[in-house]
């Protein structure tokens, strides 16, 4: 199977602002602005209506005229309401495509990072929480900016028709206050970002400590752990306190843009009256300031200072992760043999190499087992063989058709058929059933309710998930199969059945062994002990590998170190002494007696 060509993940470095603006489609924007026009009507009319209702109506005792003006406000409000209904509908044209795009980005990036071996723990939280925050704040931001504009234009239009002089008094103050507010935004964004990071850090630290509460108690480590927690707690409190400054600056700016015009209009009152302005006109002007301008400025400031900043900070986090470089696609190969030449691999520049000058040739159709302590590099070797990791030095020549079946079996929510034909979508039901039968998953198949049954991964046991992964891999046409402890949750008999099924297919089989029995089934074994790597048949290993000898001795003849093995073997340990002795003397012969040895070894080796 050749790796499919990958789409480039990088869409260039994009700032949150640029991204947000790029998502404003022109057609939707025009629609939004057109529907905003009706909303300006009540904003523009309110002051004029109040002025005329008072001057021409109520003050002259003409109640009907006053009510007529008020009725006009009502009518304008109805029209405005129709407009705002359409405006909110338009918002879905902005918010929904943005969310869809972000969901795609997050999912794609999470998979890609995972594939590159850099798993992203926060991906699911990013999907369910951060994306939603961005969607809501994006819509809120558009709404606030638009509401500010319509109120401002409406108010300005009203003021112009009522008394243009009032406009001249108000506009400079609003402009100064608003510009001052804009100047505070970078500081506010910075502080908010710090507080978000402090929050996350605290949640992580608390999570770690509380998950391990039992361990902390058992180690009596309460005091050092509390010191560990106290740091992020204090940092978070400091970040929280630091948010007060931008909030206070915002209040000050609002005082200039929202309150100062009121005082100015009042102070100019006598002068305006002297110039012929009526009581109603002054009331109308004040109405514009208090009912139109103040709420609009307040909404915009809280919109930009609240939603706007949350939008920027959250979106930046998403873009930072999803804009990261795409991992290099694994090199393709061909054939069904494997060859490593002087391969060295280390996880860091200063760490001990996991593999050192490893030479390994696996012939097509060969069955090789790998044994060694965990953490010594077996899974790393598997990843290198499959091309998932690139060695620091040395060369790897491998067939492109290399299939890795890891310990943690992948089963997804879908039908059993989808799960089993995952690596060979064109497989017929008959082929699928045959594969399930071959690896010993037939009972599981019927228990789950056939190929059309929906699989809920959480309801399967680890062993059942491994059976599904094995059947799926058996069905694949990849010429090389690497079982990386892929049968560790099965019992020894089931493991034997599955391994033999793979071996009988004639494909190249590499088994990273979890049990001695599965090493004994392979004609050739690679022993990794941290210092040496030795691949040979059982007889050679028994002669030259201390670790191999130790291992067989330990797992086939439990007894006290230094005591007489023969005595112990004859005693009730549950082992046939002859089998044990034979194993010690001629481990190589055990291949032929695989099934026998396995039965004997069953109880302890299988126990976990």
């Amino acid at each position, binding site marked *: 199977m050749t790796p499919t060509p*990958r789409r480039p993940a990088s869409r260039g470095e994009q700032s949150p602002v640029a991204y947000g603006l790029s998502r404003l489609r022109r057609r939707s924007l025009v629609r939004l602005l057109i529907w905003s026009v009706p909303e300006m009507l009540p904003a523009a009319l309110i002051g004029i209506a109040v002025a005329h209702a008072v001057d021409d109506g109520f003050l002259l005792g*003409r109640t009907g005229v006053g009510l007529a003006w008020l009725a006009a406000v009502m009518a304008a409000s109805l029209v405005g309401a129709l407009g*705002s209904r359409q405006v909110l509908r338009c918002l879905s044209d902005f918010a*929904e495509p943005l969310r869809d795009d972000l969901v*795609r980005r997050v999912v794609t990036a999470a998979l890609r990072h995972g594939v590159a071996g850099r798993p992203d723990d926060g991906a*699911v939280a990013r999907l369910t929480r951060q994306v939603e925050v961005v969607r809501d704040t994006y819509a809120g931001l558009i709404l606030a900016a638009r509401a500010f504009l319509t109120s401002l234009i409406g108010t300005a239009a009203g003021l112009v028709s009522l008394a243009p002089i009032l406009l001249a008094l108000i506009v400079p103050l609003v402009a100064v206050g608003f510009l001052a507010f804009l100047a505070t935004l970078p500081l506010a964004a910075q502080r908010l970002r710090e507080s978000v990071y402090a929050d996350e850090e605290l949640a992580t630290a608390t999570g770690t400590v*509380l998950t391990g509460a039992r361990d902390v108690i058992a180690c009596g480590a309460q005091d050092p752990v509390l010191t560990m927690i106290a740091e992020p707690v204090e940092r978070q409190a400091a970040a929280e306190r630091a948010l007060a400054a931008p909030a206070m600056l915002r209040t000050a700016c609002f005082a200039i843009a929202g309150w100062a015009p009121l005082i100015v209009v009042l102070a100019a009152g006598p002068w305006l009256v002297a110039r012929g302005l009526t009581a109603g006109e002054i009331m109308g002007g004040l109405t514009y300031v208090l009912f139109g301008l103040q709420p609009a400025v307040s909404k915009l400031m809280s919109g930009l200072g609240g939603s706007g900043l949350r939008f920027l900070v959250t979106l930046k986090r998403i873009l930072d992760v999803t804009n990261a470089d795409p991992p290099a696609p694994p090199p393709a190969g061909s054939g069904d043999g494997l060859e490593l030449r002087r391969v060295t691999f280390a996880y860091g520049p200063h760490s001990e*190499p996991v593999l050192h000058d490893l030479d390994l040739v696996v012939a097509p159709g060969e069955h090789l087992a790998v044994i060694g302590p965990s953490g010594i590099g077996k899974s790393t070797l598997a990843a290198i063989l499959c091309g998932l990791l690139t060695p620091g030095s040395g060369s790897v020549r491998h067939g492109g058709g290399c299939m*890795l*079946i890891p310990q943690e079996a992948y089963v997804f929510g879908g039908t059993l058929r989808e799960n089993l034909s995952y690596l060979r979508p064109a497989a017929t039901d008959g082929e699928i059933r045959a594969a399930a039968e071959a690896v010993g998953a037939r009972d599981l198949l019927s228990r789950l309710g056939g190929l059309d049954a929906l699989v809920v991964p959480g309801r399967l046991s680890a062993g059942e998930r491994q059976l599904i992964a094995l059947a799926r891999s058996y069905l694949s046409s990849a010429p090389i199969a690497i079982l990386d402890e892929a049968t560790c949750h099965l019992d020894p008999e089931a493991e034997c059945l599955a391994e033999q099924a793979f071996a009988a297919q004639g494909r190249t089989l590499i088994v990273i062994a979890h049990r001695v029995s599965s090493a004994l089934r392979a004609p050739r074994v690679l022993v990794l002990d941290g210092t040496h790597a030795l691949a040979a048949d059982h007889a050679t290993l028994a002669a030259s590998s201390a670790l191999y000898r130790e291992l067989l001795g330990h797992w086939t003849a439990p007894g006290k170190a230094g005591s007489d093995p023969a005595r112990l073997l004859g005693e009730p340990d549950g082992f046939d002494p002859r089998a044990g002795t034979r194993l010690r003397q001629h481990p190589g012969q055990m291949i032929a007696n695989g099934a026998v040895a396995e039965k004997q070894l069953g109880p302890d080796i299988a126990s976990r």
Partner: protein
Amino acid sequence: MTHFAEIVRKGRGWLTLMAICSLASAGVTLALPAVLGSAIDAIVSGGEVERALIIATALIALAVATDLAEAAAGVACVAGTTAWLRLRTVRHLLSLSAPTVARFETGDLVSRVSGNAVDAAQAGTSLAVTAVGVLAPLGSLILLALIDVWIALAFLAGVWLVAMVLRAFTRRTTAVALGYQKAQGAIATGLTEALAGIRTIAAAATAEQEERRILRSVPELSAHGRRLWTVLARTSAQATVVGPVVLVAVLAVGGFALTQGRITPGELFAASRYAVLGAGLGGLTGVLGALARARAGTNRLAEVFTRPSTAYGAATLPTSASGTLRFRQVSVKSLLHNVDLTLPGGASVAVVGRSGSGKSVLAELAARLRDPDSGAVLLDGIPLPELTHHELRRAIGCAFERPHLIGGTVGEAIALGRDPASAIQAARSVQAHSFVIRLPSGYQTPLAQTPMSGGERQRLGLARAWHAERLLVLDDATSSLDMVTEMKIAQALLEDDGRTRLIVTHRVPTAARADLVVWLEEGRVQAIAPHHLLWPDPRYRAVLQPETP
């Protein structure tokens, strides 16, 4: 106990300032429309404008000043109280017995510490905010009624309409939001599954296929999202009508009053302003909501604080003795019954039994992770609760099947508050050194960047407990190790190093190599004997058989 009142008291310095500011701010809010009204009247009648102007300016200045002070005081109060509550909660949690903590879900505890603590810390500020939230609208209503009773009635009718609309909104959105969350959940589940199987996906190069599979619910999510906007659009359109309805109602009734000369133009202006402020009553549910959240947060923390802390004594262990562990008539309700056992000092003792037979409880008692309901556990003759905390943890070490590692780096996680140099020694003893030095920065590798298998984790957990001076308790602590490591650790563990070792196990070789085997059945000791004497019993052999998956 952490009560609402106690939290309020904790922040009282800042709260006093906040309360003063809030009261002043409510006063200003209520006084301003009246002052503006009289200013309008003065302007219209050509009277004394300056006085009203100065008062109005002063009031506005005061409002801005109190807003500033309130913001600063509120933030300082909440930040300080939150930090205090968080540390107190974590400290208390760590002072409980292990099973008591385990009764809480970890996610639940984290949300208590990170979320509920913030809510609870707002106990004081939410009181102040509520006071203002109630005072301003109520005061507005009273002042409105003082200007003209009919205006007040017209206003109330308008507010009732607002309330009706808001109720309808909550009902409709919940139904649509549910569909949205379901579609979102489907995508999240798909991603979670794929990330768990990422090695398979990487090896099979099926990432694109996965992408398509996970994202196939996006159109559905989009459809639900659009429906949400439609509902929102409908209700918010209604809300935009209702606002002016209240205002127009007040202005119409006030206009009549103006015609009849009952009120002045300034009073009409003030009335319209009070109507807007009074409409804040609709927002009162939000204010009361904050108070309710603070209460709920406090209660959630109180649930933690009602659990009693573990008490420690003042005794130390006799220097001459060597780790003899004695269970004297120990019972734990429905888990262990009258267990009477003595583990000789320096012996290795395997504990075997089916799952649910009480092995883990026995281990927890030995390490004093819990206390028995009756009976006593004694180490070298001293009951465990009589020992000081330090003495207890120095003498006893405990390793688990699934250890949780805590610390910035791998080295810190092993040392956990002890001398970092000891970590390397301990790691060597339990076969962890060889894999730690292969990590990108060895012992300095950040724990968060160290993906570990279950077996590697277990080895670090063992290393962490290795310091124990008299008793080492291993609760299935080597179950995930591969065959080679298990063998090597078994050798280190079972050679006589002077410490008593209590090893819960399922494995035959471990039981066979131990000095003694304690066989538990349904919370009772079935037998205590060396392995080879027990082996002929088929029931014993059955206990050590693997459970088929």
